[in-house]
């Protein structure tokens, strides 16, 4: 009996410890001011200088992906509009509201929150502070939930993924393509993956497709598991893929690192959200392109709209596209480029549809 109790106790304690480790993540987030850029308010449109705060999704402003390019949007506002900017890095999903509240307390004019997951907290904060403008990056505002001080900047990830898939299907030699994605429960990530699948199928139906989501772990881990991303990409190369698309924070970056390790074997990879050639130096020799959301201009334009008193609430759709091909320029023929350009235009106009719904059915 004693043994039994001991074992049960042990399990309970282990579970409690796991929980505490998660809890450990909270707290200790303080806004970090960014030193003003040289040339400060050169492009300011006059009027008072905005105080712009940014709250990241779980991760840092140098995640080489999502947080970073949103952050670069407010850095541009600092340079061109003379805005005063600060950011808070979210360490744990439980801190979203707390972190937003730091900027609310300090009476910021604009609060930018990054990521789908922080949407609920943003909506609540916007409701409570009608005098502050909120910009929710990657946050689709459901009908009925609109607020006059909240703009949701979303991107049609499926279109960006579709372009990546079309290009990959044209470039692949083994007729076998892989995709490594953080999770299918976060719609933007899922739409990248399914858009990629649709783009491949539409371009070359004979290509074999291996697409995997790291949905077997919780949202706290799914974006921060580069070891899994790399192992998955390597497994796909083992099964004949010659191009792998990696998407979803550091998990996706792990897939790029996997391609980098096989650079002697002639494999390639595709980055996501931003031009990852600039950010994942390790993978530079193997990056074909990146499926990008034009986050930086998207965020900047919204901040500028506030500055110009032209802020429009509701859903705002930003542009998507493919990043430059850098070292792989020679692999992309003029004919392929023309097809991608035409597809980009057709996707924007609606002449070509990806067939991917906004959320996983």
């Amino acid at each position: 009996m004693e043994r039994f109790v001991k074992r049960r106790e042990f399990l309970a304690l282990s579970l409690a410890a796991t929980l505490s480790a998660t809890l450990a993540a909270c707290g200790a987030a303080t806004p970090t001011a960014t030193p003003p850029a040289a040339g400060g308010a050169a492009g300011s449109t006059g009027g008072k200088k905005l105080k712009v705060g940014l709250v990241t999704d779980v991760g840092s402003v140098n995640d080489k992906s999502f947080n970073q390019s949103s952050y670069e949007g407010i850095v541009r506002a600092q340079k061109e509009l003379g805005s005063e900017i600060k950011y808070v890095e979210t360490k744990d999903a439980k801190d979203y509201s707390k972190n937003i509240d730091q900027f609310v307390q300090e009476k910021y004019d604009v609060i930018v929150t990054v990521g789908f997951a922080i949407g609920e907290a943003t909506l609540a904060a916007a409701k409570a502070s009608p005098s502050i403008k909120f910009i929710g990056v990657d946050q689709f505002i459901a009908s009925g939930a609109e607020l006059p001080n909240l703009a949701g900047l979303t991107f049609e990830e499926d279109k960006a993924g579709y372009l990546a898939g079309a290009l990959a299907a044209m470039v692949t030699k083994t007729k076998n393509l892989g995709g490594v994605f953080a999770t299918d429960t976060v719609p933007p990530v899922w739409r990248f993956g399914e858009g990629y699948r649709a783009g491949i199928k539409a371009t070359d139906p004979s290509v074999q497709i291996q697409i995997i989501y790291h949905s077997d772990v919780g949202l706290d881990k799914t974006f921060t598991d580069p070891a899994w991303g790399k192992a998955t990409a390597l497994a796909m190369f083992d099964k004949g893929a010659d191009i792998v698309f990696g998407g979803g924070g550091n998990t996706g970056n792990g897939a790029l690192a996997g391609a980098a390790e096989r650079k002697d074997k002639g494999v390639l990879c595709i980055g996501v959200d931003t031009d990852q050639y600039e950010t994942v130096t390790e993978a530079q020799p193997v990056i074909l392109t990146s499926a990008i959301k034009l986050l930086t201009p998207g965020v900047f334009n919204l901040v500028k709209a506030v500055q110009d008193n032209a802020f429009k609430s509701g859903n705002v759709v930003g542009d998507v596209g493919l990043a430059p091909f850098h070292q792989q320029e020679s692999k992309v023929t003029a004919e392929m480029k023309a097809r991608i350009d035409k597809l980009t235009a057709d996707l924007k106009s609606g002449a070509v549809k990806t067939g991917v719904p906004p959320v996983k059915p």
Partner: protein
Amino acid sequence: MNLLLSLLATTLTFATPITLGAMSGLACERAGVVNIAIEGMMLSAAFAGFWAAVTTGNLYIAIVAAIVVGVLMSALHAALAITCKVDQIISSTVINILGFGLTSYLYGQWYARNAPDTPGTLPSVPLPGTSVTIRVLALVAIAIVLALHFVLKNTAWGLRVRAVGEHPRAADTVGINVRRVRYSAVLVGGALAGLGGAHFVPGYVPSFSPGMTAGYGFIALAAMIFGKWRPLGAWAAALFFGFTLALQITLQTYNVPIDTRLIGALPYLATLIVLAGFVGRSTPPAADGVPY
């Protein structure tokens, strides 16, 4: 055949941090010191490995740095648990909190604006006659399992470790310095966790990211329990857990219609079954967690 070999290589890759983590936990717990701080130690070590690799540009110095930091974290655990007789669960939890907080903080402070990559990762060795490669640290981990098995069973130190883990008073009466043996075991555990951290950076991934050990330290804990606190058993458990992770990937690449969340839950389910006593008994060392 190629598929099986690839599955094997992926299994070994995933099993490496789990194996090293389980050996770390085992070294401590066989001496009677509970160690649920494997995750925190591995994460700190991975950060140290990253820091040393980008600072010195030498991957081998980075591995040493990771091991040193693993030992330092375990020294803190030992000081709290053995000298101060703090509840070992609490002291372990402190290490986990500290590991996550400190590495996230330092990463933010030092690399917030521009995170460099390490100069590559540790090499793989080709499996003769195949196209499959095995990570160097995966092989090291296997050697460590065998070594720990031998040391615990056949050396004077191993016998003392087991003695202070089962019945410290009896060990004390025959002249064994219980504290010293426990300290040494915990420090060895820290070194092993440090090596586990080195598997992440610079072993496998060229950049650090906060929380990147992503729970492997806790899976290692489960492997240790599943393996009944024995090196070979824990190794088998680590391989099984690694296999479930690898299998998940393989099934998805072949579009097998099975929910991967189910396979993802297998390690935990298996551990619960073992804990519940359905598959033999999993009994911790008698004095595990009891200060002396």
